[in-house]
């Protein structure tokens, strides 16, 4: 059988330029996990329902199990590993810890990436909106109670940060 054809792909992941020759069918999540060993992005289902694989592509939350790596040619990709600034956690990461928004931790990277996207789009959404926005992220441990609290707090922290930046 002929070798599966490979194509060249280049993108920026967590601020670093990366490139590889990949089978055309390689999903972004496979490239991140297996190619770049960024294993913080998880695979929890095969139907794009669970959201454990959410990353940011050009500033938007994307399920990395539902996009080919080759579709991200030239894109800016941010994964959970790229969210903190050095030792300083992102406010949404802090909020998840502060409000016990995680238990087993498996859905957490996707939850946090979704939550950051939610804050960027909606500012400080109310509880009802947060719950509806989480439709695409499944957690089996927390009953969402503390995830909702964490996202609410994280959104407010992010908004404060923007005010500070605007004032400076």
């Amino acid at each position, binding site marked *: 059988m002929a070798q599966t054809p490979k194509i060249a792909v280049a993108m920026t992941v967590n601020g670093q330029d990366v490139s590889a020759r990949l089978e055309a069918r390689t999903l972004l999540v496979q490239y991140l996990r297996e190619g770049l060993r960024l*294993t913080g992005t998880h695979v929890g289902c095969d*139907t794009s329902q*669970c959201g454990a694989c959410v990353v940011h592509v050009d500033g938007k939350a994307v399920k990395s199990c539902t996009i080919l790596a080759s579709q991200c040619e030239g894109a800016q990709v941010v994964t959970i590993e790229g969210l903190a600034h050095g030792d300083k956690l992102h406010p949404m990461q802090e909020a998840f*810890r502060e409000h016990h928004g995680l238990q087993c931790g498996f859905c957490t*990277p996707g939850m946090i990436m979704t939550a950051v996207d939610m804050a960027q789009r909606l500012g400080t959404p109310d509880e009802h909106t947060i719950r509806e926005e989480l439709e695409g992220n499944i957690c089996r441990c*927390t*009953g969402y109670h503390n995830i909702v609290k964490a996202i609410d707090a994280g959104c407010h922290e992010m908004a404060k940060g923007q005010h500070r930046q605007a004032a400076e």
Partner: protein
Amino acid sequence: MTKTGIGASVKRKEDQRFITGSGQYTDDVSRPGHVHAYFLRSPHAHAVIRRLDIAAAKAAPGVLGVFTGDDLAADKIGGLICGWMIHSKDGSAMKAGAHPALAQGKVRYVGDHVAVVIAETLAEARDGAEKIIVDYEVLPAVIDTAGAQAAKTQLHDVAPRNTVFEWAIGDKAATEAAFGAAHHVTKIDLVNNRLVPNAMEPRAAIGEYDPGQGAYTLWTTSQNPHVARLVLSAFIGIAPENKLRVIAPDVGGGFGSKIFIYAEETVAVWASKKVGRPVKWVSDRTEAFLSDAHGRDHVTHAELAMDAKGKILALRVKTIANLGAYLSTFSSSVPTYLYATLLSGQYDIPAIYAEVDAVYTNTAPVDAYRGAGRPEATFVVERIIETAARQMGLDPADLRKRNFVRKFPHQTPVIMMYDAGDYRASLDKAMEIADVKGFGKRKREAARRGRLRGLGYSTYIEACGIAPSQAVGSLGAGVGLWESAEVRVNPTGSVEVLTGSHAHGQGHETTFAQLVSERLGVPMESINIVHGDTDKVQFGMGTYGSRSGAVGMSAIVKALDKVEAKAKKVAAHLLEAAEADIDFKDGKFTVKGTDKSVAFADVALNAYVAHKFPTSEIEPGLKEGAFYDPTNFTFPAGCHICEVEIDPETGVTEIANYTAVDDFGVLINPMIVEGQVHGGIAQGIGQALTEGAVYDASGQLLTASYMDYCMPRADNLPSFKLGFTETRCPSNPLGIKGCGEAGAIAAPAAVMNAMTDALGTEAVAMPATPQAVWKVAQSQQKLAAAE
């Protein structure tokens, strides 16, 4: 209470790695040169394999090996086992059909393992599996739980009428007599729907063989790595225990489904030697639906005998429990000793008799899922008492109060000896938080908007801290259920705790450290909790049945007692005082009545330097181990109150209010306990309203993805209102009862009592999906119109 000690809501130590994406789950582990396993699974629920031709698959690109049941048999690899013996009423042993890891001549459910293909890449393994030729002679499938015993088809030769056992508990004659004298009898028929556990991390395994050592290592998604090693070694025959290391790294949720020893890890570790490369298998979600052990699946008829004043006289129950196609590791214990022993609920019931028939069907094996038997028992008891109250025109809270157990210890008619509790206290507190008084007003207001509002109670009890070894042994358990701990104090005073428990979301790294911090006065950051590696940790029994606080932490307490005793001896020499005069508090050893003291870390250092005490009397070092076996189960209990609002035009249900008041005894970390309750409630609401595994008549699983099996999402659930009451558990040193399963145990009955209240009929089945609710609402409206 110190800032980090028992009772403090300390933020979790484990969170740093999880919120930064640095967790190490099994699929994150990468071994040099590892290859991939793909299982060819049966597409039929029941079939004889007439021919299995693997020649073309073996020759496919990238394929290193293709193995079948014959290869396992040739290597004398045994079948999977069920570790809990149940005897039928007639004294006969349960009928355990052979359970090969790879099929031998027959498949018995869709997803059953036919062969494994090992290849360089997963894609090549899948492509290789496409080339396997199987001739199936399809047999009729047995699917229906209630109909399995009458089916013409038999799954296992050893099990006539597809019956695993016909078991009973309680006093039949006393129960019949009580029914004869009853003023009122309430009868109810219930189906406890089949669920799929759905930990978010799918099961996974990596097997690796080291020819130099002649030893295997297995990384696997396990709640109990030592039990996995014991079974893989002693029963399945992979390798002697000293030549098999099992590592369960970060595990992304278990809920029972990762207790069991499955075909996939058995084959992966065995095959690593066959192909001479580490072998990785990761379940995809559909495989998880097909092959993870499912939960629940009971069909029950129950009858409650009451006197004229609403005092319960007796309960009789007949349950048929579906155990699927094979007996999973602890499956037989779930519908028996974990179920019927809780049928007394929180009530003083003079006589109980329960019969449980367990049956084989052509479906995935069924075993423990969060609550394991106790949600099923609570559902029976709490649905029937609510129904009885409605039939007798009594207030359901009052009826419960009249029948609560008030004196402890209390011996039920079904084995359990309740040791402590105050059921009235949790009911009262829950009624206050839920504002039950204001419910009538809320119901009228909802009616004006065309909505049906209902309220339901669930005053549940569970038996947790699953243990005492002799007790469980007498009931058929193949193992003792104690727990182990080792506390290693390092020369610099930092501490490692090696525990036989295993955390997969429960936060042991924090709560266990809180205990050590409080006892030794050592800061949280100087304490490491080590678990999940059979090469590091002494034999332990693992985590399930809400046991890691009550049993696991008690073992740590015992080891800490020994560490303190030893350290006192060393301190006595350092302080030149008699051992009896040494006090230990807040990390300091002092001599009674003096200002002489020495810090814990200095004692630790001196224990290792060993210059200042006679080593003929005191051994150097500071490290102690303990095994702890409790004297009884623990009995967490409480009251959950659910208020629903139904739109009869669409069938959509909203959980308007959910209140949980639980008595878990002493709380180590209230923040973590609340999180456990939230998650349990969500799974219980999921069972009541959204989740259900559905097989069609031919045995195809119709709900095999998140497109078809409705996991509760954030917008299906409310924020929960929690409260706690406390009666100390007298059966362990910390007074802990356990909190991991309560929500899942209490919630289905609370929700369904609210649903049936709102809809005005008891005939509402789980899951009460919008379609099902709409149908009931419409027929109720027609009935009302006709009257």
